[in-house]
């Protein structure tokens, strides 16, 4: 269901036809055009609500921090842009990883709605390892905590894979259920009097985890380490993109995964163990999502409270990120950037209340995100309109 539908070329090669080839071949232009259309549609919504779309959008764009790349920025503005860009990239990191968790499953014909739960489990275990074992060498501690997050995510998602392989249970149900189970288990372990609640005497009443040890914190290479500067997790996420691509396109495992995703019967007939693939693929997805959780924790959050676990939506955006990126590596990267930009750009912090009221801004964000995703869901929209025109022309000819 992830494969974009085929469309045929018009007989006479026009500009539109050339564009259509592009859409089918590279698929780069279509998403870009569609994002533009989505923003224009969003602009109408802004207008409808009595605000100035151009001001709103330029405020949002400033808020993403992408204007940091503009050479003409003043020094003051550059400082702010840098802070914003750091935030955008910090959010990009888990979005890439939870996106990959969805994308990889999709390529094997599985729909992993469970990125959320896998992310949370990753958070739980990495905060546990990260806050224990104080005194380890930093590198070892970081690697251990990251591995804990990845492994636990893998195991969690592996349950869904295993149930699918052994009992044929639909992974959509199991991952939804596992999400909620992860949430409640997560809330429980950090709750008052529970095993992983912090042991700081000043915080006995607070349902929050221990802070992770200094030795487990990821180095920050841009910005203030304490004020959520940009940590090296972004590079790990980028590396994960490469791993994803290589795994999928250059390994026998990826070959099997794609074969199973496209045609499980043919895969089985040619000797591929389909069930083993389901388990393995889900586990790898879980590892991606769990890594996302671990990096968030070790890079900038440092602790997790029970209400974080209940309210986090980042992992959920992973679904949209993956689908928008058509389950490819480069697509996931670009759409993760887009979503992260939207999230920081529309955060109240960046949206001047004289441009847009804060209470409304949050909801406007959802609307714009929804519109972007909706319009992107059909990057054949342009093609569709084109076809319509052609059909009319054809009718005009026959009439």
């Amino acid at each position, binding site marked *: *269901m*992830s494969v*974009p*539908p*085929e*469309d*045929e070329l018009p007989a006479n090669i026009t500009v539109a036809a050339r564009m259509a080839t592009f859409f089918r071949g590279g698929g780069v232009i279509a998403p870009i055009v569609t994002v533009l259309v989505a923003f224009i549609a969003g602009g109408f919504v802004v207008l409808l*609500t009595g605000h100035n779309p151009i001001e709103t959008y330029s405020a949002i764009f400033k808020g993403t921090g992408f204007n940091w790349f503009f050479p003409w920025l003043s020094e003051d503005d550059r400082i702010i842009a840098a802070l914003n860009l750091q935030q955008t990239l910090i959010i990009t990191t888990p979005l890439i990883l939870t996106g990959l968790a969805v994308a990889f499953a999709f390529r094997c014909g599985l*729909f992993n*709605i469970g990125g959320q739960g896998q992310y949370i489990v990753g958070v739980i275990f990495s905060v546990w390892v990260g806050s224990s074992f104080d005194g380890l060498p930093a590198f070892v501690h970081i690697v251990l905590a990251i591995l804990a997050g990845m492994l636990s995510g893998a195991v969690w998602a592996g349950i869904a894979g295993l*149930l699918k392989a052994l*009992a*044929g*249970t*639909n992974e*959509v*149900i*199991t991952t*939804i*259920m*596992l999400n*909620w*189970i992860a949430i*409640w*288990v997560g*809330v*429980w372990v950090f*709750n008052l*009097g*529970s095993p992983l609640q912090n042991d700081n005497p000043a915080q006995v009443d607070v349902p929050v985890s221990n802070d992770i040890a200094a030795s487990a914190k990821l180095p920050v290479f841009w910005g203030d380490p304490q004020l959520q500067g940009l940590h090296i997790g972004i590079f790990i996420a980028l590396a994960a993109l490469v791993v994803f691509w290589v795994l999928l396109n250059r390994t026998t495992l990826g070959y099997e995964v794609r074969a199973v995703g496209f045609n499980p019967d043919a895969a089985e007939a040619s000797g591929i163990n389909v069930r083993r693939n389901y388990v393995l693929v889900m586990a790898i997805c879980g590892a991606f999502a769990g890594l996302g959780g671990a990096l968030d924790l070790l890079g900038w959050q440092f602790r997790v409270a*029970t209400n974080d676990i209940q309210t986090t939506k980042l992992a959920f955006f992973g*679904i*949209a990120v993956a*689908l*928008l990126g058509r389950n490819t590596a480069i697509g996931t990267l670009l759409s993760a950037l887009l979503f992260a930009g939207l999230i920081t750009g529309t955060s109240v912090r960046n949206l001047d209340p004289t441009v847009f009221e804060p*209470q*409304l801004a*949050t*909801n*406007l*964000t*959802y*609307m*714009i*995100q*929804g*519109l*972007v*995703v*909706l319009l*992107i*869901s*059909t990057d*054949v*929209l342009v093609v*569709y309109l084109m076809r319509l025109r052609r059909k009319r022309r054809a009718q005009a000819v026959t009439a």
Partner: protein
Amino acid sequence: MTAKRVGWAGVALGFLAFFVAVPPLTVRSPLVVIVLAVLAMAAGSYAIAGGERRLGWSAIVAGLVGLAGGYAATQSGVANLDRVVVWGALGAATLRYATPLIFGALGGLFSERSGVINIGLEGMMLMGAFFGAWGADLTSSWILGLLIAIAAGAVFGALHALFAVTFRADQIVSGTALNLLAVGITGYLFVEVYGDLGTPDDLPQVPNVSLPIDWLPLLGDVFGELNLLVWLALGAVLVTWVFMFRTPMGLRLRSAGENPLAAETAGLNVVRTRYFAVMTSGGLAAMGGAFLSIGFLHTFTQEMTAGRGFIALAALIFGRWRPGLALTATLLFGFGSALAGRLPVFSPSGAVLFQALPYVLTLIAVTGLIGRSIPPLALGRPLPRS
């Protein structure tokens, strides 16, 4: 004695092992529980040996669950048991928890039986919740409020159909988009319209239906005082079944979901059928949302559907895209939720953990009893281009 019968008997025995230990029977001897549970597991083993593997394993799991639950019950105080296991109250609460899910699952059933994946149920529900409240407030009539909610859901359904059917978009993506949009639209309007104080306290409400059956032992407590929408939900299950499996329109709708090209060559209009199905889907899901806002809680809060659309989707798959089975799934889930709310009596420190109960129950049930559920053949696939 077929293995199948023994297997089902085993499942029943497993439940019985738990049931005897709680009110009204409240057997205090662990031995009874253990004997029943062991019998259940033995029956399960027999069924496995007789080739009924899934059923046999279900009986064994039921035995284990019965053993654990029943044994725990024999060890806990009678007073606590009497507080937790009040079947009448549990039954009524189960129905209340299940109602939005029933509407959602039936909505999903319409859409998915016609071949359109509807992951936007959550959004459609939320639309129903807000527009139900707003509509009822504006018109001072719960009937009009309900109708407005249904209309809002149907409009959202039409939007889904526009993208999923006409534009042939990826249906999961467009559904996800609808969920985001719904949060945005309802949140925005809520803040604009109701601002700080929220919906007014005189919001028109869907009335409860009082039946003069107080004297009936258990049924009186469960069914004596239920919201009209609860009854409508139960009725909708029946109507949906008749529609889907007994009317020409249902046959056409299902054929569009199984083999759209075949439907088209049989002279049907698959596009129109799917529009109808997805819009109905939106309307039904919206009724689930309206139950929350003007049926049960008499207020609207942002994102108040809190993931129920996804649970409804799970119940639909669990129920193998069949109305009756989906109802069973929602009831199981509702029962788990109702029970979870009461279990903290036993262990306050485990209170949070009990919240996971309905999800764990669903996971066990779907794996044990249902296993592979085969979706409509053309689910997610647009009509091939001509």
